[in-house]
């Protein structure tokens, strides 16, 4: 007979170790699954690892995937701190891209690259912020459900982009093919170490979000509001203002992630520009416990899985389904580790204490267990455990144990 019990908090290094071990457990599990399917786990996993980290070009691709994921997760984490369930990352990324693209189209051709990129960044932040603030205002003032609201905003954003893609911003130079004009060359993000500077922005933002949450008054207010609105009220905080500021920051950072993907990687706004980052980032934020530094590591891991899986498909001829299985199992064991960090499974023991007076005497004064009795009880228990037998003794009237 088993049941689940809460665990004490583990020391940090120990819980970190469990999390890392869980990734390996996931690898072993997926090995067990793919062997019967006829794949060699060693070659498959080395292809996965090699595809993600094996060469400098592989590493660059992995980091490129991780950049928008990590920035989106940083943004979502700010909202999640306030228990504002922002599921609208997709929409906020898209709207960030729409606003940034609009700026790039409107500015004269001769605009200086740095000026243009900064302006597009501001526009991207603004676009994401607006898209988050709409459900935010409704949540704060009318108590609507932000989970559904932000989710629906994703589809509105998607259809707006499709409309732009097929109709309004359709590039006349593309000979009738749908598509939006690419951003000008000077708006492309410069590269450092072969990767666009989005990685520096991501690291910078991680530090910024960390400082914001831990070291500023606003961050403190965000934490208090997230834990308990009545307490925030009691302390004299303007809960509505704090929430709206936090939601705006959250959406803005996510919008910035979109702008960075646009200017650093794809250069053209299209309906599939998000690559599901808005949803993947939710998993990243939670796996990282909303901690900004951890988000950076987890993003790399998730990006490596995505990139490595693609290489498996090319190299070892594995189908997309197999890489999906591997991804899923690794994620599942990582999430499972969170469960085992908080709970433990206990086997229920039962034993009969032989020497306790069962039915009280008329005077009713129960005998207090003496230390001698206690010792006997312990021995009894040890004996029971050793034999895996717990038997009813004569003092238990009808106690037929098991």
């Amino acid at each position, binding site marked *: 007979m088993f049941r689940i019990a809460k665990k004490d908090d583990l020391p940090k290094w120990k819980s970190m170790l469990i999390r890392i071990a869980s990734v390996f457990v996931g690898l072993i599990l997926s090995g067990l699954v793919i062997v019967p399917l006829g794949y060699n786990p060693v070659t498959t996993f080395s292809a996965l690892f090699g595809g993600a980290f094996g060469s400098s070009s592989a590493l660059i691709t992995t980091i490129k995937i991780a950049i928008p994921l990590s920035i989106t997760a940083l943004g979502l984490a700010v909202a999640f701190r306030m228990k504002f369930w922002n599921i609208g990352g997709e929409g906020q990324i898209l709207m960030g891209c729409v606003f940034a693209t609009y700026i790039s189209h409107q500015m004269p051709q001769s605009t200086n690259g740095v000026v243009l990129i900064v302006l597009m960044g501001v526009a991207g932040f603004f676009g994401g912020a607006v898209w988050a603030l709409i459900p935010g205002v409704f949540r704060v003032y009318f108590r609507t459900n932000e989970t559904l609201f932000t989710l629906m905003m994703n589809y509105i954003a998607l259809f707006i982009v499709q409309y732009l893609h097929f109709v309004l911003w359709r590039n006349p130079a593309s000979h009738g093919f749908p598509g939006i004009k690419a951003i000008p060359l000077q708006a492309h993000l410069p590269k450092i170490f072969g990767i666009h500077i989005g990685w520096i922005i991501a690291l910078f933002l991680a530090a910024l979000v960390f400082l914001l949450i831990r070291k500023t008054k606003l961050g403190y207010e965000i934490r*208090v509001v997230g*834990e308990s609105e009545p307490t925030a009220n009691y*302390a004299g905080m303007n809960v509505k203002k704090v929430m709206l500021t936090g939601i705006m920051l959250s959406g803005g950072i996510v919008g910035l992630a979109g702008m960075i993907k646009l200017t650093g990687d794809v250069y053209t706004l299209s309906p599939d520009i998000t690559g599901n980052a808005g949803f993947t980032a939710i998993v990243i934020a939670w796996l990282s416990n909303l901690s900004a530094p951890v988000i950076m590591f987890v993003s790399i891991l998730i990006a490596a899985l995505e990139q490595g899986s693609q290489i498996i498909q090319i190299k070892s001829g594995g189908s997309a389904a197999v890489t999906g299985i591997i991804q899923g199992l690794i994620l599942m064991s990582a999430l499972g580790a969170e469960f085992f960090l908080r709970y433990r499974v206990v086997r229920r023991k*039962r034993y009969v*204490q032989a020497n306790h007076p069962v039915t009280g005497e008329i005077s009713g004064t129960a005998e207090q267990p003496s230390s001698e009795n206690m010792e006997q*009880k312990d021995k009894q228990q040890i004996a029971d455990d050793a034999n895996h037998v717990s038997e009813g003794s004569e003092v238990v009237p*009808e*106690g037929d144990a098991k």
Partner: protein
Amino acid sequence: MIHVNPTTPELAFSMRGISKTFGSVLANENIHFEVRKGEIHALLGENGSGKSTLMNILSGIYQPDDGIIEVNGVEKIFHSPIDSISSGIGMVYQHFMLAEPLTAGENIAAGTKGFFLNRKTDSRTIREFSEKYGMEIDPDKLTHQLSVSEKQTVEILKVLYRGARILVLDEPTAVLTPQEIRRLFIVLRKMRESGCSIVFISHKLNEVMDLCDRVTVLRKGRSIETCNIADINSYDLVEKMVGRKVDLSIDRPLPRPDGTECLLVENMSLHDENGYKKLNRISFSLRHGEILGVAGLAGGGQKELCEAVAGIIPIDEGKIIFDGTNISGKSPREIIRLGVSMSFIPEDRLGMGLVASMDIADNILLKDYAFQKGPFLHTAEVRKKAEQIVEDLDIMTPGIFHPVRKLSGGNIQKVILGREINLSPKLLITAYAVRGLDINSSYTIYNLLNEQKKKNVAILYIGEDLDVLLELCDRIMVLFAGEITGIVDAGSATKEEIGQMMSGTKLADVVGGGKHVSNR
């Protein structure tokens, strides 16, 4: 009056060798607890002694790590509360669990046999059923129209209607007036005569002595003793609960004769977010160096009174004057900016006054951060302050970076009290300051309040234990349904008089009243 038949002490249920751990905390350790048929058995123990864990095991909410439960001599394993209910065990919790939109009768009948509800026949059977036990209830009344004591009656009927022969009452008298308590006891005695067994959990020793046949005392997760009530007195019981002798008298230093008026509330009215009137034309005053107690049934407007004075909820009309400054309609932060130093310790400490998952230092910061300069937090001074508070109030904690939710109830209360006293307020509002605290911690809190009183602080003390209110406070104001039914001198008023006012009788009409009218 011992009703136990000495020849056949037949057991209703017995729990033997019950152990239960939460993480590393041993909540129950080898507990033995047996209740006979047709007895009222008190379960006594301080907070954290393992009472609620034991009762949650009996009701099937928790599964024990170890031990055996027998009901009517048959061993049972409760996998869920359903198993426990079908064994004839009924729980009446302190917090009522009734479906608000339904009638009293529907609440009683819900969950019993049959698919359809038939209001008419159900009403009749329920009426007959309740009269059998001497309880009166109108089954067609809607739940939200019921008074607190009626709701409790519904809860008791609900479990009896499902066939419970063993009743567990968790602090049933905490929400009742003395008169209602007497009525409840009559019902409970009647149930005992019909062969039911009752487990009576209470902190109030005089009730236990008055009502119960036997008592089992728990201390630190262990069963210390089971004995007949007739064989023990309340002083020995306290000693067994606490583990040593305790002086149960509370100091009442005289208020300073030169105390000037600190708080003046005039004709204050307010309503809640659903539009219900919660306070109606409340007027009172409070002097520096005086403790004004507030008595009343749950929901009588005490919470609203505190929050309105603290500026957390808006008022409809009236005036709140603090040392000559009108603070009505101001937010908590505006009130502080005006230079008004007032501290409020709310009823729900972890839900309102503190952030449960944050550490002590971050919680001390709650009242300080807004007045620090610049956008960044300055934590160094707050840490020093936190260390000081931990040391001054003797808070048991591994350190100031320990999350408050992991502290015991008494230490949690000390953290918030320490933070608020540290602001050296002129007015201290405390709502149910000792709720959930054990006897030792309660007395520590009373002493801290008295120290503040001697420092000329005005104290508004919302309480629930009338004995404590009468001993600690200088005057007692009684609220009923949002109105003041009277303000009396605590030195001369009696529990009976306050009880009458708590159930709505105005002071002028109170039997034997009038002579205790407060001098102001």
